[in-house]
C-alpha cells in the first residue's frame, strides 16, 4: 500500500532536520510510540500503541534511518510485529524551502501481513499521516536552545 502526503511547516529545514536525523528526537516526537532502545545514530527500537476500539494494541518496531541528504531528504525503514501480524514500512521524506517555511512531501510504502492487512487497510493511511505530521510539528516546535543539535 502506498500512502503519500504534503505539509507546509512553519519552520526552516534545518530545524526540522534536527528531529528527523536524531533517533531519540524522532522517537519522542512520534505520538503513542515509546522508545525502547537506541542502537546507534541510525537505528532504534520502539513500541507503538495505536488506539483500537476497546483499548490499544502494541506493535514492536525496529527503525533504521537508511538514507539521508542532510536538510533535504531522509528515508527510514521500519519493520514490526504485533502478535502474529507483521508490518514493514519504508518512508521517504523530502524537504524544500518555501520562504521561511518548509514544504515537506513524503511517500510511504507499507506492507501488512496477517489480519491487520484487513483491519488496518482503511486506517493505516490516517495513522501514518498522523505520525508524520506529529514529527514535523515537533520539529517546528523546537526552541532556540534545541536548534543546531
Amino acid at each position: 500500500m502506498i500512502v503519500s502526503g504534503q505539509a507546509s511547516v512553519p519552520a526552516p529545514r534545518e530545524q526540522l532536520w534536527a528531529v528527523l536525523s536524531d533517533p531519540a528526537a524522532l522517537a519522542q516526537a512520534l505520538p503513542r510510540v515509546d522508545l525502547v532502545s537506541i542502537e546507534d545514530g541510525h537505528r532504534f527500537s520502539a513500541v507503538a500503541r495505536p488506539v483500537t476500539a476497546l483499548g490499544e494494541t502494541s506493535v514492536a518496531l525496529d527503525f533504521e534511518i537508511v538514507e539521508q541528504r542532510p536538510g533535504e531528504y531522509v528515508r527510514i525503514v521500519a519493520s514490526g510485529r504485533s502478535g502474529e501480524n507483521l508490518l514493514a514500512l519504508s518512508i521517504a521524506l523530502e524537504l524544500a524551502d518555501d520562504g521561511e517555511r518548509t514544504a515537506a512531501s513524503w511517500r510511504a510504502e507499507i506492507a501488512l501481513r496477517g489480519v491487520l492487512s484487513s483491519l488496518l487497510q482503511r486506517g493505516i493511511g490516517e495513522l501514518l499521516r498522523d505520525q508524520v505530521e506529529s514529527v514535523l510539528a515537533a520539529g517546528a516546535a523546537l526552541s532556540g536552545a534545541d536548534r543546531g543539535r
Partner: protein
Amino acid sequence: MATEGAVHMVDLKVNGVAHSVAVPARRLLVHFIRETLGLRGTHIGCDTGNCGACSVICDGQLIKSCMMLAVGADGCEIETIESLGEGADGLDPIQEAFREHHGLQCGYCTPGIVLNAKTLLAENPHPTEAEIRRALKGNICRCTGYVNIVRSIEAAAEAQGSVRA
C-alpha cells in the same frame, strides 16, 4: 502478561437478578454473560461488532455486548434472550410469531434478532417493511434471506396491536 491485569467489581442486573462480581478489566460483556453468568443464549459471530449475534438490551437500548466491556456495564440493567417467555417452555408473542412464520433456521442469529424486534416494536409499534429492514441492518442472518424475519416481525406487530386494541 500472566496476570489478567486489573480486576474490578461490577454490580449490575441481568434479567432482573442482581449480580456483584469481580471481573478482569478486559473481559467483554458478551463473555461475562456467557462464561461468568452461564447464559448461553447470547452468541458470538464475529470479532468486529458487525454481526449482531451478541445483541442484548442494556438500560432499554439494543447494544452489541461484544462492543462493551463488562466493567462498562456497571450499574446497568441487562436483558438477554433468556428474559423472554414464561419459564422454561413459554414463548413470548414475538417468539411465537417467529415460530409461526418460520423466522429462523439454524437459530444462531435468532436471540439477537428477537431482542432487536422487541426494542423496535417498543419504540415503533407499527413499523413499515422499510423500517423493519432498517432496524435489522445490524443483525446478519445467513440462513433465512431475511424475508421470513420481516414477516415474523410484521406479524408480531399486528398481534401486539390487536392485544392493545
